[in-house]
């Protein structure tokens, strides 16, 4: 695998994850528990779309086949997507949506922290732009997880269920493979496995404040980063890509 082939895959992993998570979060629009949350969720979805545009545009550039960020988002099929399985999980209740957000935000903030020092300046520049937003996201999602975990007995029960349900999708974030090996060597990206200890520490602190128990079972679902997805992604793409697929070549 060449450096650019590996970088292309890595950028898709970043950009597809923010794209699909943004899609899921935007499904809340108009349906949140309070207006402040409607605003905050729309804001999160919007930030994630902005990040997607940066990552996928660079992916297209690195690939060198003239594909734009929109081409990549709208004209690939399921098997070409490289997002984490975690982000395609259905929203569930508000607590589950925020739990998924926090588990992802915690990872992304650590990943971006390392990418700030990437040997590829284009990657470092995007990480710089995204890291301020993500610092805010992780603070907010952590705060909500704590508030609901340590809220009423009902909110506690729901948050524990959310954590138990999503935890098997956490491990995939830290799996390293041949793509990572190439990028580690040239100093573009960190070994994802190396982020685990800091992630465990951050998530451990938040779950403690939230009075939630981290599941002991370490089973990990994998496949998203290499293109084997859950059944959900096909429906997400059917929605997302509808217009581009139904009216090929139209300008919008």
């Amino acid at each position, binding site marked *: 695998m060449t450096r650019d082939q590996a970088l292309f895959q890595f950028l898709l992993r970043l950009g597809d994850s923010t*794209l699909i998570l943004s*899609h899921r979060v*935007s*499904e809340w*629009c*108009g*349906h*949140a*528990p*309070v*207006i*402040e*949350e*409607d*605003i905050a969720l*729309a*804001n999160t*979805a*919007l930030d994630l*779309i*902005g990040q*997607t*545009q940066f990552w*996928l545009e660079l992916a297209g550039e690195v690939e060198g086949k003239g594909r734009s*960020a*929109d081409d990549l*988002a*709208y004209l690939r099929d399921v098997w070409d997507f490289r997002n984490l399985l975690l982000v395609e999980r259905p929203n569930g*209740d*508000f*607590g589950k949506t925020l739990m998924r957000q926090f588990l992802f935000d915690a990872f992304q903030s650590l990943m971006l922290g390392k990418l700030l020092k990437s040997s590829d300046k284009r990657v470092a520049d995007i990480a710089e732009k995204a890291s301020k937003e993500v610092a805010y996201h992780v603070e907010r999602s952590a705060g*909500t997880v*704590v*508030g*609901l975990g*340590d*809220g*009423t007995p*009902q*909110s*506690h029960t*729901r948050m524990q269920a959310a954590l138990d349900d999503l935890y098997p999708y956490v491990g995939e974030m830290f799996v390293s493979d041949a793509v990572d090996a190439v990028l580690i060597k040239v100093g573009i990206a960190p070994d994802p496995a190396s982020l685990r200890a800091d992630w465990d520490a951050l998530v451990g602190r938040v779950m403690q404040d939230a009075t939630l128990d981290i599941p002991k079972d370490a089973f990990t679902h994998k496949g998203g980063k290499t293109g084997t997805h859950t059944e959900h992604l096909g429906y*997400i793409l059917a*929605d*997302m890509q*509808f*217009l*581009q697929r139904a*009216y090929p*070549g*139209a*300008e*919008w």
Partner: protein
Amino acid sequence: MYAQMVKTAGTGVKTPDEMSDQERAFQARIDAGEKIEPRDWMPDDYRATLIRQIGQHAHSEIVGQLPEGNWITRAPTLERKAILLAKVQDEAGHGLYLYSACETLGVSRDELIEMLHAGKMKYSSIFNYPTLNWADIGAVGWLVDGAAIMNQVQLQKTSYGPYARAMVRICKEESFHQRQGYSIMMKMAFGNAAQKAMAQDALNRLWFPSLMMFGPPDKDSVHSTQSMAWRIKINTNDELRQRFVDQTMPQMKYLGLTCPDANVKWNEDKGGYDYSDPDWDEFFAVLRGNGPCNKDRMAARVKAWEDGEWVRDGLMAHAHKNKIKNAAQVAAE
């Protein structure tokens, strides 16, 4: 206009003789163009009417998220998706400012929301129409935000201070929404045959409902006089509707779209367009709950509120625990 057919409280405009000293002084301040502030004395009917009007406006912003939110996951490019997300986020923000303005009159946001859900308050009829193709998102920005601006620009001069100030903030964002909507319409109207058809279809369905946003014709508008005397309504429904048609027709011509009203025609003598009234029976049917989307809209809002109860309770319980913890800490020091 997001506040249609707001029932004015009271028995009609009083003559100076019928007014108490307080009422006379109040009316004099309004006539002098002064702003009324939350702590000032105001007639009960003025307060009640404003609560209805601002509350209805706030509810409209919130329910208005739904027809546009309907297309966020299907927006055709990342850029369009981002713009639409930002717009819908603005609308929720407008709802928030307006509920806050309403709270200065002594009614809480939760009470207002519960009144909406119980069918005791309304939101604009326009949001009971569906968004069926992508051009609807353009047409909503162009026509619906356009009509809203027409009304809200005048309300920047309304007599109640918090409402007037909320309007100033909101109007800036609404004109951005309108421009974005028109930009979608241009892409569609100047696009391929299918896109042109979508643009025309959206216009066909949304034209008359947009005219309804200004409320019934002046001759049937029973509530206007008192509200105008109080300056919580500045222009009449027909004045605003005329202004809207005059502004919109040249834009429609530029897009090369056909107005679904075959009678729309420039009238040199009046210096404005003649146009047909919308079907007022349909308008009243929509207000009574029989629009194409009333049931879906209310069901979605009620579900969001009920499903969110455990979240609101949980966050409140946590805030309460923190308060006790902090107080205990202070006491221990």
